[in-house]
């Protein structure tokens, strides 16, 4: 029983990190209705950047969040302006191809630069906390994961307020709902799309800088997170920010509870099985508005 409770608690903590991974996609895919199959590669770039800054420059991954976030914001807007804007109007398939091309390009550029070896951040603020544990009702909370989950939650709430409570967020939502009407009230849709891609890329890179404390980095690490993020966004209901958070927590719990009863290889299988089931019976997701 304690084992199960422990698994649920661990899953919830991972879920907060997944929420941060997925929410960039909620903006690009759910809100702006554009497809990005290179989402995990943005995460991978964030992880590699944080790893490199930590090993070569001695910057802690938590501090690396700032430069990486800014850099990846620029990268995201660039991807939109140079590539995605061209394919936006056409067949949705073209967006899939374009971002699969981007996936191959980014992933293998990193392979060319750094090889496919697994890399770890040995020494960081979070890994140094690993000795500290909190006990509550027989359930153990490891300090690194707890701190990371708390940080992810803070960032997530900041984003929620940005999208739901500021004029900028309203402009973003207006663009997603009706581009022409948004244009009439003085919003420049192209600009909003570019910003959405920038924010999405920055968020997932920040998630990467946090994840690098817990996961190995290698060029192919992205795809598993891409599909996980798609499952989370679809489960949460497209474009629903709080739905994404809830779905990410569900996914985290499914993963960690699965591992209690089955070989670790099945960790993701049950996530996708639940995606399929919910997709069949409630295609608009758990919190979808339409």
């Amino acid at each position: 029983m304690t084992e199960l409770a422990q698994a649920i608690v661990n899953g919830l903590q991972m879920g907060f990190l997944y929420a941060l991974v997925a929410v960039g996609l909620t903006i690009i895919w759910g809100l702006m209705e554009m497809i990005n199959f290179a989402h995990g590669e943005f995460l991978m770039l964030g992880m590699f950047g944080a790893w490199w800054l930590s090993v070569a420059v001695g910057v802690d991954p938590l501090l690396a969040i700032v430069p990486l976030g800014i850099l990846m914001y620029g990268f995201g807007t660039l991807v939109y302006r140079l590539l995605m804007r061209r394919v936006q109007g056409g067949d949705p398939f073209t967006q899939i191809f374009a971002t699969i091309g981007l996936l191959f390009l980014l992933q293998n550029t990193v392979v060319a630069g750094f090889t496919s070896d697994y890399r770890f951040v040995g020494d960081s603020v979070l890994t140094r906390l690993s000795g500290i544990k909190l006990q509550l009702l027989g359930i153990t909370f490891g300090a690194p994961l707890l701190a990371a989950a708390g940080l992810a939650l803070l960032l997530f709430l900041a984003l929620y307020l940005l999208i739901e409570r500021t004029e900028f967020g309203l402009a973003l939502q207006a663009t997603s709902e009706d581009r022409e009407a948004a244009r009439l009230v003085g919003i420049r849709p192209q600009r909003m799309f570019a910003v959405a891609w920038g924010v999405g890329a920055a968020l997932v890179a920040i998630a990467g800088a946090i994840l690098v404390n817990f996961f190995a980095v290698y060029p192919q690490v992205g795809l598993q997170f891409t599909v996980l993020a798609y499952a989370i966004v679809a489960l949460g209901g497209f474009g629903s920010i709080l739905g994404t958070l809830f779905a990410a927590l569900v996914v985290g719990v499914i993963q960690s509870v699965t591992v209690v009863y089955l070989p670790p290889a099945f960790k993701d299988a049950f996530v996708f099985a639940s995606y399929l089931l919910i997709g069949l019976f409630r295609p608009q997701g758990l919190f979808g508005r339409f």
Partner: protein
Amino acid sequence: MRRIALALGVLAAIVYPIPLQLQGYTYYQTVGFLVLITAMLGLGWNVIGGWAGQFDFGPQVFFAVGAYVAALLFVRRGVDAWLGMLAAVAVAMALCAVLTYPLTGLRGHYFAIATVAIWMIAQPIGATWEFIGGSQGLFIPVKPHAGVVSTALSLQFTGPMKALGYYYSALVLFAVTLALMAWVERSKLGYYFRAVRDDQEAAEGIGIDSRRYKVVARSVTAAVFAAAGVLYAFWALSVFPEQVLELNWGTLPIMATVVGGIGRLWGPVLGAVILIPISQIMSTTLGTGPLAGRGIDLIVYGIIIILIAAFRPTGLLSLPWGRWLR
């Protein structure tokens, strides 16, 4: 003009390995084998992706199913490869129909993610199911055959003839697939597929059961992938999950189709003829240098796909070649 080009192509495909073989080279036969497998897979993917217009991101599942079924039949029951291929195709089609029907209610990228989800679920099953050898997979032993005919019938080529034998086997399978697809394209089935793609509501309005034809389309795709999987398994002499469930068995044919021209019969063929040699040329020129094995060929693929998507999403075959060549 077209007929001459076709005749020349057929002649080149049949004849080119012979002088190489006589001089003792086998490398280019293997390149040809890989081109043909990719082209064949692309032809298969074109049915669900190009004609029926559903983005299938997980066809590699059926490549694996084909490889496993034929390998199991051969290892456990001694069933020869070509016979095993029939069984593999049947199993893959049936499994595909059962798995795909529930998904056909999903549209666009929902469908795409669902096909990825099935692939993600297949991986741990492949890695842990002891009946099919778990993560070790199955080893296909070579049984000696006397004579060319019985070797060809068993699909077990060895020694200096290995590359040539598999090249011609792939050529036969490719030709069968191409003929089948040429027929599907002009048959009623092909029109139903495209009607569902172009306007699902209108297609349903004139009585086309869209879900049924999506299932049929994907099952045809699965059949081609399964047949190719059998050929690959007997070439590689082994089947294990990380090899046959690799993502590239899906993405390479998809890229070939997109580069050549999605929804066009010859699109995947042209794409495979362009893409696979690029990869082979790069791995020979990079040799054992510092950039060998660093995915340079895949960087080039990525750039090609990005350029195609940005400037000519309908593929190279859709360019006005007739005007240029005149």
